[in-house]
């Protein structure tokens, strides 16, 4: 059996990593390549770099950063943020990104998933979904949670899989940055409906939360930022703890 993956997420602005609580109040936590290398040495299974300056300036800075990351890091990494065309995807692939994550642009134009997947393969496409509970239904949001759409989460995730996404990265906007735990029932329900791997994101406040989403939540991987960036627990300590609880991880 494949091991459950632990994926630190690094938000990048102007080549530096930052992490905000609910995306407000950014706090600089270091150099993107060095931080990534540190996580890799601790046993991180993959890394995700999100360019939060992508919609404004700084896109070129990010591209050259991705090139440096690809040279310096020997584990897989995903890049995301502001990817809205096959050209954006190609530019990041060319400098060495292993996968790209697409979000708002795919909601706006779902064929983007087909286009990138058919040209570069499903393994290159992570469909990121930011979901919010509204009147008892999980709906999709875009633009970092600021815009609510009428699209229903489960239907969109299934469509994404059919169109060729290789993985789903699901964030509950109710929980993101709050460190109050993942909505495990949501992840378990989605996992039953899809055959592609699901990465759980948003809300990890403790090692217990991560253990729960990987077991009861049936997620294939857990992505977290704050608990690693603020030094609550190292990736190594977390994985040892998961191992002790009988969850298969790479030690």
């Amino acid at each position: 059996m494949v091991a459950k993956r632990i994926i630190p997420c690094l938000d990048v602005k102007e080549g530096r990593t930052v992490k905000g609580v609910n995306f407000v109040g950014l706090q600089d936590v270091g150099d993107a390549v060095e931080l990534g290398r540190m996580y890799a040495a601790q046993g991180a299974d993959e890394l995700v770099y999100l360019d939060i300056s992508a919609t404004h300036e700084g896109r070129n800075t990010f591209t050259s950063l991705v090139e440096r990351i690809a040279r310096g890091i020997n584990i897989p990494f995903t890049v995301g943020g502001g990817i809205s065309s096959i050209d954006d995807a190609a530019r990041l692939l060319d400098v060495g990104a292993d996968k790209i994550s697409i979000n708002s642009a795919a909601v706006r134009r779902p064929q983007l998933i087909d286009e990138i997947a058919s040209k570069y393969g499903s393994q290159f496409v992570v469909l990121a979904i930011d979901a919010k509970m509204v009147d008892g239904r999980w709906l999709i949001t875009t633009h970092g949670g600021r815009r609510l759409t009428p699209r229903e989460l489960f239907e969109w995730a299934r469509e994404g899989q059919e169109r060729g996404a290789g993985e789903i990265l699901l964030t509950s906007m109710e929980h993101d940055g709050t460190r109050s735990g993942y909505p495990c029932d949501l992840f378990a329900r989605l996992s039953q409906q899809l055959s592609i791997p699901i990465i759980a994101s948003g809300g990890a406040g403790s090692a217990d939360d991560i253990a729960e989403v990987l077991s009861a939540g049936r997620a294939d991987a857990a992505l977290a930022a704050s608990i690693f960036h603020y030094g609550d627990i190292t990736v190594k300590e977390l994985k040892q703890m998961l191992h002790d609880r009988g969850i298969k991880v790479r030690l």
Partner: protein
Amino acid sequence: MIAIVDYDTGNLRSVCNAIERIGAEYCVTSDAAIIGAAERVLLPGVGEASSAMEKLRERGLAEVIKGLTQPVLGICIGMQLMCRYSEEGGVDCLGIFDADVRRFTPDRGRGVKVPHIGWNSIENLRSPLFEGIDEGAFVYFVHSYAADVCADAIACSINGRRFAAALCRGNFYGTQFHPEKSGDVGEALLRNFLKIE
């Protein structure tokens, strides 16, 4: 000099970066003469098997690769193309390894996902390629199709069914996983490949 075969199947960058990290000389080429003269040959590849096979044939490289006598390492699709046949696109491949490539079957109840993405352990290691690498070591996989376990298998892994994680016949080697993305274990394997006579 290592020749990294360029047949237009996506990203070669990560393989080049990994070779650079271990300090070896390489060139990226589709030139039959350069490939033939190289000390070692790497056949990378991502994407879809039948179109990758077609690109290899279009460039006249299928017969070139079959005829190589120096150590050759196929990675992921590169390894699958060295098998007999791939179910992906129903394509006859190079027929170097005595194995067919078949799709994984997802099994939600048992948590078997397709694509098989992530770190999995490899067992029954039997090759100088794995010198210094422990039984059960974790390596990084990304694929939906896999070669059956056969006499050429030099490592096995499990995703729902047991499959060949690496193959070898004569001077030809293949890994289904990505050594260029498998951390220190992957770098050790690439170093071992450079030492093979």
